[in-house]
């Protein structure tokens, strides 16, 4: 039995494993085209990637999470383009019958003679302006996606950079950075964000309105009409507000890891070779401490979506006619529970997106740790050997 476990046999591959192997192979082929011989030189790394996918594939919660977030991302990217109606189609103005219809309704419009003029399908119902709820949720997904991406792309690097600097240089630099971090951490994040989000829009709005390029860029980002440019400001303020409260935990985690990572002798060896400080930080220290941060990021995207929804729910984010998930719930809340769909569907969307990121984060925690990764691999192999 022993040797069958130990031998370098490749594990049995399920469909998912074959798919992930193909994925890795095609990525490496692509890199090979740019840099010939790359896969040859990075064989160990590629095998490790495949093993990571293999371990990931053994985790049902991870797979559910992956399905959820892939759907979330696809909906966020393409949703606005496939939405049956635009968020600006206020059908209620022309057709009062579309006012707050329940899910699955078909509204038939007839003219005075009784001829059918138009037929509207509303799978998820409509809101008080007669807007299609399904379309609103699709548009809202885009806002959630963009907000979480921008927060992560801007907030996390700031946090990481400050943490690296504080941890590596120590002394006065460390004192100053960490005391500021402490101050930010001492305020409840939501309250701080509310404070920022309520004062910022007035400052941002003129900038956007006066700049043609910004208008264009953000209208693409939010899949919104340029006419709503003035309404970009509150969403952007929410983004800024979240970034402002988002970096401190990263700074603290990174600083702690740097403190222990810089004791590694390879850092000392690099110093002795005369490697520059920033190269030591980014080549020798950061790659060795980044895994827990990646896990935190995935878990955090869920929280960003939630916080953005909360701020919108408080009326600070998207303004009419723009929508995001929090805003739809906010508008629908006054009709709850009679017109339940206005709260339940966007709420469900938020819930699933957040759940997806959390499931992925928890699985990544295991997959990124080489030790648990191996033990997942071993358990499967041993199970197989015992069956024989």
């Amino acid at each position: 039995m022993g040797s069958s476990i130990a031998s370098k046999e490749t594990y049995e591959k399920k469909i998912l494993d074959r798919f992930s192997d193909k994925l890795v192979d095609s990525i490496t082929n692509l890199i090979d085209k740019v840099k010939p011989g790359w896969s040859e030189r990075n064989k160990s790394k590629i095998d490790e990637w495949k093993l990571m996918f293999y371990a990931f594939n053994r985790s049902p919660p991870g797979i559910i999470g992956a399905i959820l977030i892939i759907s979330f991302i696809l909906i966020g990217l393409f949703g606005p383009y496939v939405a049956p109606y635009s968020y600006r189609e206020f059908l209620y103005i022309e057709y009062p019958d579309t006012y707050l219809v329940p899910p699955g309704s078909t509204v038939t419009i007839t003219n005075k003679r009784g001829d059918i003029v138009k037929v509207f399908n509303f799978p998820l119902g409509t809101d008080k302006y007669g807007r299609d709820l399904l379309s609103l949720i699709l548009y809202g997904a885009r806002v959630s996606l963009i907000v979480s991406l921008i927060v992560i792309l801007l907030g996390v690097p700031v946090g990481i950079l400050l943490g690296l600097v504080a941890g590596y240089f120590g002394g006065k630099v460390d004192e100053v950075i960490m005391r500021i971090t402490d101050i930010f951490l001492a305020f409840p994040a939501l309250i701080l964000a509310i404070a920022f989000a309520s004062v910022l829009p007035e400052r941002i709005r003129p900038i956007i309105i006066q700049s043609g390029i910004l208008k264009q860029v953000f209208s693409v980002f939010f899949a919104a009409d340029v006419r709503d440019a003035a309404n970009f400001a509150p969403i952007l303020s929410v983004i800024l507000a979240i970034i402002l409260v988002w970096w401190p935990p990263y700074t603290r985690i990174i600083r702690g890891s740097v403190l222990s990572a810089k004791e590694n002798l390879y850092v000392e060896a690099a110093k002795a070779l005369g490697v520059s400080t920033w190269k030591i930080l980014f080549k020798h220290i950061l790659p060795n401490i980044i895994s827990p941060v990646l896990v935190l990021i995935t878990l955090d995207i869920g929280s960003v979506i939630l916080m953005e929804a909360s701020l919108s729910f408080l009326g600070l984010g998207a303004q009419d006619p723009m929508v995001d998930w929090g805003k739809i719930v906010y508008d629908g809340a006054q009709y709850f529970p009679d017109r339940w769909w206005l709260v339940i569907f966007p709420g469900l969307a938020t819930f699933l997106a957040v759940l997806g990121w959390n499931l992925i984060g928890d699985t990544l925690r295991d997959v990124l740790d080489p030790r648990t990764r191996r033990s997942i691999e071993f358990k499967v192999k041993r199970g197989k050997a015992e069956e024989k």
Partner: protein
Amino acid sequence: MIKGMKTLGLKRKILEVKDLHVHFYTYAGVVKAISGVSFEIYEGETFCLVGETGCGKSVTSRAITKLIESPGKIVKGQVLFYRDGSPIDLLKLSDEELRRIRGREIAYIFQDPTAALDPLYSVGYQIAETMVAHNTATWKEAFRRAVDILKSVLIPDPEKRVKNYPHELSGGMKQRVVIGISLSNKPKLLIADEPTTAVDVTIQAQILDLLRKLRQEEKMTLLLITHNMGVVAEMCDRVAVMYAGKIVEIGTVHQIFKNPQHPYTKGLLKAVPNPLIKIEKLESIPGTVPNLIFPPSGCRFHPRCPRKLDICDKKEPPLIEVEEGHKVACWLYVK
């Protein structure tokens, strides 16, 4: 008189290990940590297990009282402990019976004294605790005896030190306290697993001195595990040399150092720089210690052996006696 010879005469076994196998079931595969280890220890002697990292010394010593934890498993073998001349197989005893023997008749000292002491209790309490746990003394008596024990392991100011907590002691002192604890029940067999690896040479000299003195005074048998050939030469009567989970040579300290037979023993002795001799060039053993998941076939040393024969990678050499009390597992000596 030649060291080690005296024990050959009085042949009263205290421990006999027979064909012991221990495996570890790890993610990378099954580590065959020791495979077929057999040796005996006689009453009153100091027996050494010597070998490089990972050769299975600690596993062997722990397996003696079933101190192997998951993912490890004792796969096969017998450990006979002679109590008043009659053997009992320790591996067949229940955990409760073993616990009574461990600490009372067989005591352990490990490499890291800090891990062996509980930081929350004074050293006096910890010494007394072992005696009370094995019902050899009442609390009151045990506390009084703790002072004597500290005195016997040469700790200055024992009356004050009993009240100290582990962090108030230096590494050398902690190791002496650990020795004191293990001696508190006057064990018959003391198993010391690299007791001086974590301390400096001068402290090592003190601790070895102490062990030597205690062994004489208490008439204990000592199983000493080390990777330091110097310590072997200074402390032991008989020696077993281990390589990759097997014993390759066993004999008196004099036989091993003056007349080594196994190519590995020879290489090991030549690889240690003796500071008293002028050495032009050290001889090294090529290659590295094998992976115990896939141990080499036949003699496990064959990939590194300078005198390898054809048969060596095919069949395992038996452990045969080449002179009285001197056994070697090597095809060069099989007729």
